[in-house]
């Protein structure tokens, strides 16, 4: 028995050292600039492969009312503590306006009733979080293509950038604590805190998609969830739905849509809050 136990211990120690050594080597590769650029090549291969296979208008599957998740999880910001946002929420978003600008012929300022006056779309879809879980919800909103058609997208525009109300780092008020925060969210927050101390600028959530997804029929600016006005934990008064990508692309608390030809000068230049922290810009996988 002693021999057996020793062998098992030796095996466990061996496995720990072996795998641990490999894990440490991988850490060093991912931290080097060559290593990380090689790893990042996979993202552009995935993007091109999926764009080629999916085309512009292939629809995500739509489900039925009986599929709707009763306790749809709210992730990320649950209630922005920003004073401006709290004022707007206090007034039931009557004074809220969505600004559409950048590379457009005509900048727009749209109220919720302006958006509701445009032809709506309702879809019941599955929401996949990058962490791994899925929930199903019913979303009603204005197709982004309707809004962009009224603003007139200029030929040089390549991306739509979504600027949000919620402060993630810096600023006067601390980022709100999410009761449903996971270990991953907590660790991301620690990393965020470290960055904040380096340069104390206010960083709000933002996201971006290409014009193929922006003009996709299921890409909507949702003001209703499950038949009721969009609740604050899910992004009131307006959130984006991009049904062929992961949840972090679907920015909540929308304030402004900016049409651009590059991400340079926006955040750290990677096209989104989480993208600036290492997550893929293309989240179709």
């Amino acid at each position: 028995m002693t021999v057996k136990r020793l062998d098992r211990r030796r095996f466990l120690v061996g496995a720990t050292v072996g795998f641990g050594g490999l894990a440490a080597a991988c850490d060093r590769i991912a931290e080097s600039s060559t290593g990380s650029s090689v790893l990042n090549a996979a993202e552009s291969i995935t993007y091109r492969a999926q764009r080629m296979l999916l085309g512009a208008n292939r629809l995500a599957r739509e489900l039925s009312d009986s599929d709707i998740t009763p306790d749809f999880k709210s992730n990320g910001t649950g209630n922005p503590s920003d004073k401006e946002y709290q004022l707007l929420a206090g007034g039931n978003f009557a004074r809220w306006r969505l600004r559409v600008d950048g590379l457009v012929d005509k900048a727009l300022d749209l109220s919720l009733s302006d958006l509701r006056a445009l032809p709506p779309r309702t879809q019941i879809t599955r929401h996949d979080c990058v962490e791994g879980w899925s929930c199903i919800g019913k979303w009603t909103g204005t197709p982004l293509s309707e809004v962009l058609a009224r603003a007139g997208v200029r030929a040089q525009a390549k991306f739509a950038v979504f600027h949000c109300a919620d402060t993630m780092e810096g600023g006067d008020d601390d980022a709100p604590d999410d009761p449903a925060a996971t270990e991953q969210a907590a660790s991301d927050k620690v990393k965020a805190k470290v960055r904040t101390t380096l340069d104390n600028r206010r960083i709000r959530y933002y996201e971006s998609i290409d014009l193929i997804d922006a003009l996709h029929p299921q890409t909507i600016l949702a003001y209703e969830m499950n038949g009721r006005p969009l609740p604050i934990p899910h992004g009131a008064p307006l959130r984006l739905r991009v049904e062929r990508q992961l949840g972090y692309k679907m920015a909540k608390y929308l304030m402004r849509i900016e049409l651009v030809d590059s991400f340079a000068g926006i955040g750290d230049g990677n096209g989104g809050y989480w993208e600036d922290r290492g997550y893929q810009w293309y989240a179709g996988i």
Partner: protein
Amino acid sequence: MQADRWIYRHAAIVRVTHWINLLCLTILLMSGLQIFNAHPALYLGEQSSFDRPVLSMTAELQGNGFAGVTTILAQPLITTGVLGVSKLHGKDVERAFPSWATVPSGQDLATARRWHFFFAWFFVLNALVYLGYSLASGHIRRDLLPSFSGLRRIGSSLVDHIRLRFPQGDEARHYNVLQQLTYLIVIFFLLPVIVLAGLAMSPGLDALFHWLPDLFGGRQGARTVHFIAAFAIVLFVLVHVAMVILSGVFNNIRSMITGHYNLGEGD
């Protein structure tokens, strides 16, 4: 004195793709465990029923410290030290899989996804090279498809394996029937299943193939199958390595590096 008899056992493409496959599967496993750590629970069906996971790994306050608890089908098991709670730099931390088993070692979903998808592409391309060669050259038909007489010997082959009696001399020229069936199951069932279950988790591909998650009872079912298949591959590798060691470790490893296998002394 009689001379050793050598055979050329593994073609160069088989040897190269074998070792690349080992690298890919190792990184895929370790980065996969890191990805799992971001939401350490598995469900059945299309969506997550958060209160009813089929498997979860959590840390629970017990006495003065935290205990790692792995719950499988509502049966809790204490797994402190490995699953749920493990040491990192000498301190207990809450994490599903321990830092020595994950890539990257610290909690980092973003980087794990970059490792995972890079090596997923590498794995699939390597597998296509292997399959293309093996089908075209007749390797699958000649070496892996069991013969009728081989299939009739499954029982005796099983007994031989249990007694750790491995084919010697001329009998070692070919894979035995258990080896053939195991390799066929891994190549044509287990690995395709884990790839399909992985693809079924992609919201992009699900828009192209609406039926893809249904193969696994839904997207969360696909995530669960992906996880189980990963550990089925780990189990295969453990048995495979044990067999390599027991049936002549140097001869076996040499043949997978140089291609040449020693049948021992002959007439």
